[in-house]
């Protein structure tokens, strides 16, 4: 496991050759990291500083150069933190991310469970099931529009199957719009949960399951008491990563709805986009971005904490699954 090739035992004086070797490794390390540090300093840092600048200055594209913008302190933050619209967009994002994450997970998990043992046609179903994930999101959005407009094939099929004429306004009813995007997200990304869970099932060691079988446990009990606990790290990974991606979803929401109808699909990314590129309120957009970034950093830090803990379990599982390594 450990890469102790170069790390000398503590307290033992280094031989001259060892010393030059440690130095060489250090040089090697900094040579490799230098470009990364340069990129952080040259791209990310200035960008974050600019964002800070705009958050505290009032500037829109209609005013002269941005260097002359007026200092307004915390006004913008006061504005956005007290306005209900931003609050709603946060709630909408959270609802969208939670709903689609759970949807993707339940479907992906069920499919993986059905497919984790070899059967005839497994490869065919696997390839078919990963296709949505390989479809460009913007293509998903436009194809969805062809399918979902009021006289489109989905309503046609619902009408035929039910016998009555249904014209569900998937794309123009404010009460349905967010659900529509959520369903699209689920269609698009169930493959993600599916492949992760399938890999999870494959990495469960066989012995505990066989032992439970021999002891006469039902498959139901084996599932709840052996497989599920062993799958916990993989399940958390699938949930956490999907949730983060769903919080950032933009192409489908934007291409289909631009935040509308009304503000039914105005998630955080859409609201930031509208403020900055449609209303041209760059400063407000920056302040919004700043608050959204803080929110995301908190979420990501929690996510990373979870992932770090589970990664140890995953690594252990990986080793256990292939004894003799």
């Amino acid at each position: 496991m450990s890469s102790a090739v170069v790390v000398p035992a503590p307290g033992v004086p280094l031989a001259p050759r060892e010393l030059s070797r440690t130095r060489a490794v250090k040089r090697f390390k900094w040579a490799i990291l230098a470009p990364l540090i340069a990129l952080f300093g040259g791209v990310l840092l200035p960008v974050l500083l600019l964002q800070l600048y705009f958050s505290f200055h009032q500037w829109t594209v209609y005013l002269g150069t941005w260097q002359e913008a007026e200092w307004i302190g915390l006004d913008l933050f006061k504005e956005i933190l007290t306005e209900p619209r931003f609050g709603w967009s946060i709630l909408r994002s959270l609802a969208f991310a939670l709903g689609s994450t759970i949807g993707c997970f339940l479907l992906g998990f069920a499919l993986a469970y059905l497919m984790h043992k070899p059967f005839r046609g497994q490869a065919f179903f696997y390839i078919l099931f990963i296709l949505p994930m390989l479809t460009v999101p913007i293509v998903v959005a436009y194809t969805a529009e062809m399918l979902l407009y009021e006289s489109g094939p989905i309503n046609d099929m619902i009408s035929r199957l039910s016998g009555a004429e249904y014209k569900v306004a998937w794309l123009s009813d404010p009460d349905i719009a967010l659900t529509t995007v959520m369903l699209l997200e689920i269609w698009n990304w169930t493959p993600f949960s599916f492949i992760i869970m399938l890999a999870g099932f494959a990495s469960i060691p066989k012995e505990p399951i066989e032992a439970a079988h021999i002891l006469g446990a039902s498959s139901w009990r084996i599932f709840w008491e052996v497989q599920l606990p062993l799958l916990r790290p993989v399940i958390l990974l699938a949930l956490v990563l999907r949730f983060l991606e769903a919080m950032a979803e933009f192409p489908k929401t934007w291409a289909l709805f631009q935040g509308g109808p009304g503000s039914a699909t105005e998630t955080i990314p859409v609201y930031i986009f509208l403020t900055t590129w449609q209303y041209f309120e760059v400063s407000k957009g920056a302040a919004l971005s700043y608050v959204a970034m803080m929110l995301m950093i908190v979420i990501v830090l929690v996510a990373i904490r979870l992932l770090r803990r589970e990664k140890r379990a995953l690594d252990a599982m990986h080793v256990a699954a292939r004894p003799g390594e």
Partner: protein
Amino acid sequence: MTKSQKNRIATIARYSILTVWALIVAFPLYWMVSTSFKPGEQWFAWPAVYIPDPWTLTNYLDVWTGRQELATSQYIISAQRPWIALGNSALIAFSATTLAVLYGGVIAYGVSRYRMLSEVRMFQLLMLRMIPPIVVVAPLSLYYSALGLLDTWIGLVLIYFLTSLPYAVWMLKSFIDEVPREVEQAAEILGAPRWRTLLEVVLPLVRSGLVATFLFILILTWSEYLLALLLAKTEVVTLPIELSKYQGSTEGRVYGRQAALSVGITIPLIIIGVIIRKHLARGFSFGMIRR
């Protein structure tokens, strides 16, 4: 009920559920492909037309060759535009991906063998990917315009390189971790310099991992929308942006042509994805799952 009967029912249930989901997955894709072969009046027909009648190549010819005589609308499609967008997409995706894989590979090697980045730093690197780009793209576009990188392919390559670096580092590290160290130690004892060990011993051993990582990141950069929209959309147009321009056309909906372009954008990704299907879980899980 005997055991074999039970098994039979389980098998039937499994195939029925899988078939239902297969239809749900396949129908939108089928609709995209079939619409691309439909003549204009069948794009919006009610009741819907499920099988193109007659099948026609008009949409493909209109979109990809700019053929006008059969076009039902006044909307002029320039013959070169989709091809320029295709060229841009290919150039940008390939450059960014190549850079990310090369540099990511070097970092991954350093981390795997010399613990160059601690575990905490490695997870911090993930933030580059996990924080949604929308929260920094406004100041980034201003910064880019100050540097003259706005609407250039270098600008997009740079940002795609940065955002795919976490995937490259993590995924490649998981591959390099699997290569036994003994080979390198032997090379080192024989006096091979570190760079040569990396290039001539380690790289060949992780060749398939490099290819998988490359193709995986290619999928991500090829389909990116937000950054391509906000950092470059007039001079440098990538395929997803080109597709979205049909939406805003004055003619209203031109579904057949959208579909013809969509098919062109999607086919390369599906081919790539199917080739690396065994590695997709590893890619999307940042190498934390290795199967």
